[in-house]
């Protein structure tokens, strides 16, 4: 039974239809890749689910409940976690304080309790020297912190937007196993936007291909990449 569902989700900006009637679902314990060429509407789609945009039409369901009109901060509280394509460390908070936010606000922990929980979570992800300002962290640590921030809201579903961008192959591998580990241990439903096909292949259980805001294919990675429409979309031929 899928935990997250979208039905004919659509958003238009002026004349441009960025996401067009997308039906999509996620299941707990599964990792779904969301791929497509630049401008296909992947990030817009995540923003729609996170509540940053209001859809023009269509709806979003979490656990069968319609959350289409819900405010973004509420969605975080009911278990939608995400990371950002452009990373957003809160630079005036230290590493651990960045992670504490989710515990404090999505889970209503007290400050000392949130700190303890954040320390535990950071250790689980292999982060150390937790009182550092974010400006003293390297890119892998920042990415891990972003993951920790998303996990701190105690998510049921998790969207990872370009988590591997900027990482070298060793670091990517480390992140991949980390994501797989938390998906299993927390029984998460995960959506991954990624450009590197190798990562998608390794990480995901299935993929959805977006082009021009529409789903043009979905299924197992191996099958989908053979799809003609997908190939022409990536080659720039258009559908």
């Amino acid at each position, binding site marked *: 039974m899928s935990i997250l569902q979208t039905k004919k989700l659509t958003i238009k*900006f*002026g004349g441009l239809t960025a996401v067009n009637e997308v039906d999509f679902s996620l299941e707990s314990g599964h990792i779904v890749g969301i791929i497509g060429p630049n401008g296909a509407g992947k990030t817009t789609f995540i923003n729609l689910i996170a*509540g*940053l*945009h*209001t859809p023009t039409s269509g709806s979003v369901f979490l656990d069968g409940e319609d959350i289409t009109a819900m405010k*973004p901060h509420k969605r975080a509280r009911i278990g939608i976690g995400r990371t950002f394509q452009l990373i957003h460390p809160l630079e005036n908070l230290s590493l651990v304080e960045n992670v504490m936010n989710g515990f404090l606000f999505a889970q209503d922990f007290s400050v000392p309790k949130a700190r303890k929980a954040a320390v535990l979570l950071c250790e689980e992800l292999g982060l150390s020297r937790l009182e550092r300002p974010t400006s003293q962290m390297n890119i892998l640590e920042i990415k891990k912190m972003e993951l920790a921030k998303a996990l701190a809201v105690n998510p049921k579903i998790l969207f990872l937007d370009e988590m591997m961008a900027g990482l070298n192959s060793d670091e990517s591998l480390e992140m991949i196993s980390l994501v797989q580990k938390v998906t299993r241990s927390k029984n998460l439903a995960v959506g991954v936007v990624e450009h590197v096909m190798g990562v998608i292949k390794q990480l995901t259980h299935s993929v959805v291909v977006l082009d021009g805001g529409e789903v043009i294919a979905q299924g197992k990675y191996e099958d989908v990449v053979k799809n003609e429409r997908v190939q022409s979309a990536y080659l720039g031929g258009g559908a």
Partner: protein
Amino acid sequence: MRQNKAVIGSAVGFIGVMIIILLIAKPSALIFGIQRAGLYAAIALPMALVLGIVHIVNLAHGEMMMIAAYLTYSICVAFGLDPLVAMVPTAVIMFFVGMLLFRFTIRYALKAPELNQLILTFGLAMVLSQGINLLATSQPRKLSVDYVTSSATIGNVSFGTYDFIFLAVAVIFLTGLMLFLKKTRLGKAAMAVGQNPVGAQFVGINVISTYTIIFAIASAMLGIMGAFFITKMSIFPTVGGAYTMKSFCLVAMAGIGNLPMVLLSSLVLGISESAVQSIPGGTGWSPLVFFGLIIAVILFRSYAKTAGVK
């Protein structure tokens, strides 16, 4: 862009409706309002330029105009010149004053949070006005020139003709700036710097010197305005403060970096203020109209912008 058109459309519409109402009910209020709008716009345009390109809210804006006015006054008194002639040396001097102020103070606060720039320019404003107070006392000064009182009568409405010069100055400032920004190399560079300082640096534009020149140009414009100002108004050390605030409000109402809207906003405010003042007992309430309109416009724009995007 769309919302911009909506704002311009409603501003023009508003002005149109006001003009029609006033033409029927109180033609003189319309004329006074347009004249007042010219003064507002001419003073606010240099601030809009600085804010749009250098991204500095200059709280010493009015004080710089005050300095320019005192400069004009001193030049006129010393050499017996007409203020509109003394305008030329004033503008030149103010160009360099602006350059120095920028080079030695504001430049160092560019990278700091905008709050630092606010307080820095607030400190400068204080130094300028208190300095003049010490040198020239708080007693107001004014140059009297004959042509200021020229007037015309249409039907039974008499009004000053000289006052239209402020509208002319505003229009000349505006077209001059638009041409400068769109047609000249320096202007294009300034636009590029204003939109994306980092990117501009990559294509080889010297950001700091562009900022300096823009600030100096704005100061020279204030120099010109200072000369015009003293033909109509008295000057005293604290005369600038109110115009800093008014300009700031106008620029915010127009939207940052939108020079033509400064003129439109001035017209909206000038005519509305004048209309309110033409009602007996209305003067006391005219600031309410001024500030109320500003809030309304800002809110309207923010709603127009967020419609569809949360």
